[in-house]
Every structure is written in structure tokens, then in C-alpha cells.
């Protein structure tokens, strides 16, 4: 049994690591595949650990994906990807538990019955926190590149034309906007 499991682990380690490293080298399409596959692993990892908080799973998947993206410069190619991802997921999970327990101590007791009829394995939940709403709070030089490129599907060059920003300002705007988004999520936790 364990051997089968270890084999599966080392297979996905090899595959994901390869995708990630090619993504870091600048292949956006491969990077997207990496994030997609990673999100399925994260989802099942979190569902097992958040059986009492199923509504938080997708929020946390998104938060961890954003953290992995924003901290990708801390990955060393010599290091097992599993260890790096796991440490980030664990850090964010502990953070969630901490902010939850603080909030519940104040006024929002967990209803133990809520998980009785919840089948966490098949449920495909939407994220409760809408990142698009948080995006609205970013300054224009970060928000506009993100809105044009992502939500309207324009290229960097088209976005630069539409916003009057330079191409590098568009790229930097997206980059900084994603960092700022993580800061906004964190300040929400702290309230």
C-alpha cells in the first residue's frame, strides 16, 4: 500500500516540479497547467483537513495559489516541490485556524451539525470571498491592467494601448496588483 502511495507521490512530484520550473522560466501556458493541477491537489488536501469548515476550502485554495505565485521566487530548484508547497499550505491553514478561533471566541460559534450532511468529497463549492470585489480596491495602475488582461482577455500590447500605460507598466501593474491582493486578503483575516 505504502509503496503504491510513495510511487504516486514521487510521480506527481516529478511532473509538477517539471511544470513549475518551466513555468518559472517564463512559459505561461505550462505555468497555467501547473497551477491547475496543483489546485486539485490542494483542494483534496484541504477538504480532508477542513471537514468542519467546508465553505472555507475554495477560499483557501485561492489564497494558497496566490501565495505560491507571489512567493515563487523563494523556491530553490534543488528542493523537493512537495516540501515547499506543503509548508506554504500549512502556513496558510494555520493562519485560517488562528483567525477563525479568534473570531469564534468573539461571537460566531461553530455549529457542529453543519457538517453532518455535507459530503465534502463531491461538493464543488464556489469561493465565498470574491477576489473580484477585492480587486476593485486596488489603485488604477494595478487594477486596470488586471481587468483588461484577465477579464477582457486582452494581450499586454492591447492593454497598454487601452490604458495608455507602457507595456512594462502593464506587466508591473499585474505583478504588484497580485501582491497587493494578498495583502488585502490578510487584512480581511485580521478584522
Amino acid at each position, binding site marked *: 500500500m505504502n509503496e503504491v502511495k510513495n510511487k504516486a507521490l514521487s510521480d506527481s512530484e516529478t511532473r509538477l516540479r517539471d511544470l513549475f520550473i518551466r513555468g518559472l522560466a517564463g512559459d505561461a501556458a505550462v505555468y497555467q497547467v501547473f497551477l491547475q493541477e496543483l489546485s486539485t491537489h490542494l483542494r483534496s488536501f484541504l477538504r480532508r483537513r477542513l471537514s468542519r469548515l467546508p465553505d472555507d476550502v475554495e477560499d483557501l485554495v485561492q489564497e494558497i495559489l496566490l501565495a505560491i505565485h507571489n512567493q515563487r*521566487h523563494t523556491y530553490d530548484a534543488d528542493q523537493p516541490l512537495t516540501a515547499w508547497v506543503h509548508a506554504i499550505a500549512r502556513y496558510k491553514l494555520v*493562519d485560517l485556524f488562528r483567525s477563525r478561533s479568534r473570531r469564534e471566541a468573539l461571537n460566531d460559534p461553530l455549529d457542529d451539525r453543519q457538517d453532518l450532511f455535507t459530503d465534502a468529497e463531491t461538493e464543488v463549492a464556489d469561493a465565498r470571498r470574491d477576489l473580484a470585489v477585492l480587486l476593485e480596491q486596488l489603485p488604477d495602475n494595478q487594477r486596470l491592467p488586471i481587468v483588461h488582461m484577465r477579464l477582457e482577455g486582452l494581450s499586454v500590447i492591447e492593454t497598454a494601448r487601452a490604458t495608455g500605460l507602457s507595456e512594462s507598466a502593464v506587466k508591473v501593474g499585474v505583478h504588484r496588483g497580485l501582491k497587493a491582493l494578498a495583502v488585502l486578503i490578510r487584512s480581511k483575516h485580521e478584522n
Partner: protein
Amino acid sequence: MKTDDLILLLASDTVAVEPRVWRRRYALALGAGVIGAVLLMLAMLGVRPDIAVVMQIPAFWMKFAFPGALATVALLAASRLSRPGVPLGAVAWAIPVPVLVIWLLGVIELSGATPEQRDMLFWGTTWATCPVYVALLSVPAFIVLLWVMKTLAPTRLALAGAAAGLLAGAVGAAAYALYCPESGASFLGVWYVLGMMIPTVLGAIIGPRLLRW
């Protein structure tokens, strides 16, 4: 926003990532911290006037070797603690080694000295101000190192803050040694260590709040 949309958004951020960027950042921070500490030392204290003479004496170099050894292990610890999933490993055991060595040297030195010599070696004339100056001189490095750490991704925040504080303390101690008129190993082992403990403990306290991401 659906997770797939977020993934598309993340994949559209194509700003290149420099491999092992933390090395350059720590090197720059350490350089800035050393320069800041030396400038602060020159402004507040000045280099000891007999520096040319004492440079001939091994005990003078011990005052740099000791903080230098601590800085080396603290830098390794800080660099590891700044990155998710990198264990401290043997570095955790290496951190107390320089302190234990200087204590051993201090004990040997004191046991071979007369009572009056002992007083001079252990207390010197500057024991009361030494820890304060070491801590003050560590301030520039403390600020830049924590700032660099914040651009990385520490997951054990109190430990990470302590490692940055220890590294800053060692930088402060080495800069202070250019002024310090004392020469006892026991003096280093107590008063320098006390001075370096101030930024270390401060880092452990503010790390969990400051370094969150």
C-alpha cells in the same frame, strides 16, 4: 471569482523570477548593515586610538572571529528560515557553538589569572555600556535584514525574526569591536553576548507580527 479565473490571472503575471534571488538580497542587506554599523560607530564612538598596536595581538582578532562565526551561522539560519519547507537541519546545532567556544576560552583565561586580572578581564571598564552599544550598532542591519526577510516567505516567524536579530547583533558586535578597549574572552562571552541577545529577542518578539504574509 472562480479558481480557474484566478489561475488565468496568475499565469498572466509574466514578470521573470531570478533564481535564488535571496542570496543577492541577503548579500546586499548584510553589506548595508555592516556599512551602517561602522558609520554609526564612527559617529558615536570612533575607532580606538591604539588600533595599529593591538592589531598585532591575537585577542584583538578574536573580537571579530567570534561575532563573525555567529554571523555565519545566523546568516545560514536566516536564509533557511526565509524559505518554506527548508529545514534548519545541522544549522540549529551550529548556532550555540561559537558561544560555547568563547565561554570555554573565557573559563580557561580566568582560571589562569590572578584575582585582580580576573576583574579586569571580566568587567573591564566598559561592561555597562558594551551591551547597549552593540545593540545600538545592530539597528541598521536589523532593519534591512527584516525588510529582506519580509520580501521572502518565512513560515516560522518568531525563529526567523530571532535569526535576523542574531545576525544583526553579530554585525553590531563586530563594528563595536573596532572601538572596544577590552580584550577578555569572558568579556566577549558575557557582555557582547548580552548585547547581541537584545536584537535577537526583539526579533523573536516582533517577527510574528512583522513578517506575516
